[in-house]
C-alpha cells in the first residue's frame, strides 16, 4: 500500500514538474535585465573580472553572510551532537 502511494505521488509530482519543460525555454530566458545590469556594470562598479564573485560578495553579500552562518551553524550543531559528557547529567533538564 505504502509503496503504491509513494510511486503515485512521485509520478504526480513529476508530471506537474514537467510543466517546467514546457513553460521555460532552455538557453533563452524571458527576462534578463537584472543579470544584464550585473554584466554591464559589475566590472566598473566593483572592479572585478569575475562577475559571480561580485554578486556573491557585493550585490548579494548579505546572502553570503547567511550562508557562512549556515556552515557555522552546522559545525556548531555537529560539535554539539558529538560533545563529551562530563557526568552529572539530568534525566530531564527543563
Amino acid at each position, binding site marked *: 500500500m505504502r509503496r503504491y502511494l509513494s510511486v503515485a505521488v512521485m509520478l504526480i509530482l513529476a508530471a506537474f514538474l514537467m510543466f517546467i519543460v514546457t513553460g521555460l525555454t532552455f538557453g533563452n530566458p524571458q527576462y534578463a535585465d537584472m543579470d544584464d545590469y550585473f554584466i554591464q556594470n559589475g566590472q566598473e562598479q566593483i572592479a*572585478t573580472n569575475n562577475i559571480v564573485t561580485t554578486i556573491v560578495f557585493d550585490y548579494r553579500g548579505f546572502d553570503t553572510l547567511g550562508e557562512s552562518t549556515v556552515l557555522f551553524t552546522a559545525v556548531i550543531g555537529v560539535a554539539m551532537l558529538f*560533545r563529551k559528557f562530563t557526568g552529572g547529567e539530568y534525566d530531564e533538564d527543563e
Partner: protein
Amino acid sequence: MMRMSKIVRTCADLMYPFVVIFGWYVIMHGHLTPGGGFQGGAVVATGAALVIVAYSYQEITSMLKKAVLMVQESTGLLLFIGAGLGGMVLGFPFFFNWLANSGSLFGMSVPYGPNPGELNTAGFLPLMNIAVGIEVWGGLTLVILYLLSGLEKGEA
C-alpha cells in the same frame, strides 16, 4: 582508525602544501578567475581531509586541534561581518563596498584579460574572500573531525 600505507602518507605530505597553496591561489584570485572564498576554502579543507585520511585519529588530533579550528572559524566569520560593518561605521549601509575604486588598498580598477596579477582591486572582496576562506577551511575540517570523533570508542 589506523594510518594508511607509507605511500599514501608520503603522497599526502607531498600534496598537502600544494593543495593549500592552490587553495589560497583560488581564494586570492577569487575576483579575477573562477573561485573565491567558498571554493578555495573547500579545496583547502579537502586537503585537510586528505591528511586526515592518511593518518590515524590520534596523530590527527595532535596535529589539528579542534579548539584552534573553532577559533579560526569564528575569526573568519568575525572578519567577514566586520568587513560588512566597516561600511556601516563609515556612514554607509551594511555591506557597502567601502573600498572599491577608492584608490587605496584593494582600490584599483581592473582591466579586461585573463592575466591574474591585478590583486589590488575589487574593494573589500579580497578581504571577504580571505575571511570566508578561513571560515570554510576551519568549518569543513571541523565537520570531518567531529564526525570521526563519533567513530572513536573512547571519545564522545
